[in-house]
């Protein structure tokens, strides 16, 4: 019985494993890499938004911190890419912890405002360039974050080297499989986390904080643990993004992207983990398809979000559960009857 929960994820992973063998178009593969990274970000956002019930406005800032810090460390300081990614993720972990401490004094609503401010501060710091780049690079007129052009616009961020394999946007297939593997591992880790005793504590805190405390849950500790882990995965996605794409522009953490990501999480279904992953597949493809509309594509995204919130608040995952509870048993029965008739 326990296996049946994993049937759909297994089939999905199986399909994704054979996609590069069928479709060799570099554009499609590049799109899939982007989808996998966005799925990782949205799943990690779901940890804090869905499981903890805290709206972390600054979640994409952590994607940016992961991307910029690991990019800067490997571009200007010559750190090997994979070490830079790990260090960048750990920095986001620590900053997420510090940000989550604000819930102690200020409470949940203020946390949203504080994270909103945090996102804006980071965005403006990135756009301003953050001062000259260290050493030789600074003398050539480069700024630390590359300003509005982005980090790696002139000299690309070094790509990820794993032994003989180079993972960058030049080599689509290794990048595809690498991000897929990372996504599967991270999803499994997050799934295990949300079903563990820590997940129980955070769901309890989300549903009734007062009651959870009355049963001995320390609200600050488990909020901090969960937010730190959620920002860690965002930082990991950011680090991978920087080294695979070779360039990080401030647009990935801009408000337009925040809205798209938020829409993905809502549309997928809060607190379901697999929902946002599936939704990122649909909506990232859609935004790429609508790229011709430029800024107007945000209107489409906003309409999807409104529709989700007003008509079907449980999102795609909720729709799937509804379908399962309503029709799946009937279908199973029909198949059973057909087999035995």
């Amino acid at each position, binding site marked *: 019985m326990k296996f049946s929960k994993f049937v759909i994820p297994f089939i999905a992973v199986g399909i994704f494993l054979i996609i590069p063998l069928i479709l060799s178009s570099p554009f499609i593969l590049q799109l899939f890499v982007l989808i996998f990274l966005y799925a990782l970000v949205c799943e990690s956002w779901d940890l804090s938004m869905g499981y903890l019930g805290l709206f972390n406005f600054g979640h994409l800032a952590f994607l940016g911190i992961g991307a910029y810090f690991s990019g800067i460390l490997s571009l200007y300081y010559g750190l090997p890419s994979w070490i830079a990614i790990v260090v960048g993720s750990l920095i986001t972990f620590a900053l997420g912890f510090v940000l989550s401490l604000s819930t102690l004094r200020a409470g949940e609503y203020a946390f949203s405002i504080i994270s909103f401010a945090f996102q804006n501060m980071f965005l403006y710091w990135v756009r301003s360039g953050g001062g000259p780049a260290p050493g030789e690079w600074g003398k050539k007129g480069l700024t630390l974050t590359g300003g509005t052009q982005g980090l790696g616009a002139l000299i690309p961020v070094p790509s990820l080297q794993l032994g003989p394999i180079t993972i960058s946007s030049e080599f689509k297939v290794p990048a595809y499989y690498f991000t897929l593997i990372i996504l599967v591992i991270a999803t499994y880790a997050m799934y295990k986390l949300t079903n563990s*005793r820590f997940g129980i504590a955070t769901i309890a805190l989300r549903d009734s904080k007062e009651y959870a405390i009355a049963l001995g849950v320390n609200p600050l500790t488990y909020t901090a643990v969960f937010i730190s882990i959620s920002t860690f995965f965002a930082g990991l996605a950011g680090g991978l993004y920087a080294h695979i794409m070779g360039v990080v522009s401030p647009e990935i953490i801009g408000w337009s992207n925040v809205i798209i990501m938020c829409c993905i999480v809502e549309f997928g279904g809060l607190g379901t983990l697999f929902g946002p992953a599936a939704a990122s597949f649909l909506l990232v493809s859609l935004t790429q398809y609508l790229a011709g509309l430029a800024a107007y594509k945000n209107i489409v995204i906003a309409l999807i979000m409104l529709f989700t919130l007003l008509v079907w608040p449980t999102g795609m995952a909720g729709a799937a559960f509804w379908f399962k509870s309503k029709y799946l048993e009937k279908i199973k029965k029909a198949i059973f009857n057909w087999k035995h008739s």
Partner: protein
Amino acid sequence: METLLECKEVSKYFGDFVALDKVSFSLPEGITFGIAGPNGAGKTTLFNVITCNPYPPSSGKVIFNGKEIQKLKPYEIVHKGIVRTFQIPVRFRGLTFIKSVMVGSVYGNLANLKQNIFNYNRDKFEKNALEALELVGLVNKKDEFTVHASLYDLKLLMIASAIATKPKLLLLDEPVSGLTDHEIKLMWDLILKIHKELDITIIIIEHILKFLMNVSDEVMILNSGQVICKGRPEEVAKNPEAIKCYLGEESKEIFKSEMDKV
């Protein structure tokens, strides 16, 4: 009998309003203690300040097992061994029955993150949670979500989660309000069972007097934040001041007849 809980001149103010006015009482170990009084008397406020959830007392001392606890955090008080239920039933909508009890079982017994990481033993806590569910008779519903639970089930679930934290003192806030007579009888048996089998001292707030007077070894009447009287139920029922402010003239007869029945 040793004193388990002692309140020394505990007061709680909300601005000018005095919710508790220098309430003092001591509670021996191993009894069931009833608290009654009109609405707004400060009964639930007393529970709130004993558990510091959601607020501590404005002044005074709460001494549990010989240690002052009024400055502790609410979850630390749970780890000391005091746990409460709520007047208005609360639930974790996203959790099943067994997982709701697991919250109490795991987090009531593991005091901090370090213990949670290193001292966690899934089988032990799950067994503990199942035992608690079995005691209240909900073990057949363990995998259902609490969203659809009835009022009676919710009250039982709150008690199960509470006893899964292995408390020394259990505070029940109106455990039988809104229940049918049959359910009240079942709850009555359950509370006595918890009291005897698990050896837990219990404080009960309740408006249904025939339940409270018969289940408690001692009763305290509160009015406007002050203790009116305290003693054995038979004595309290005869106390003229308690009759005047809360019990009413008929209480003696109702109480007597109910006692005869039991």
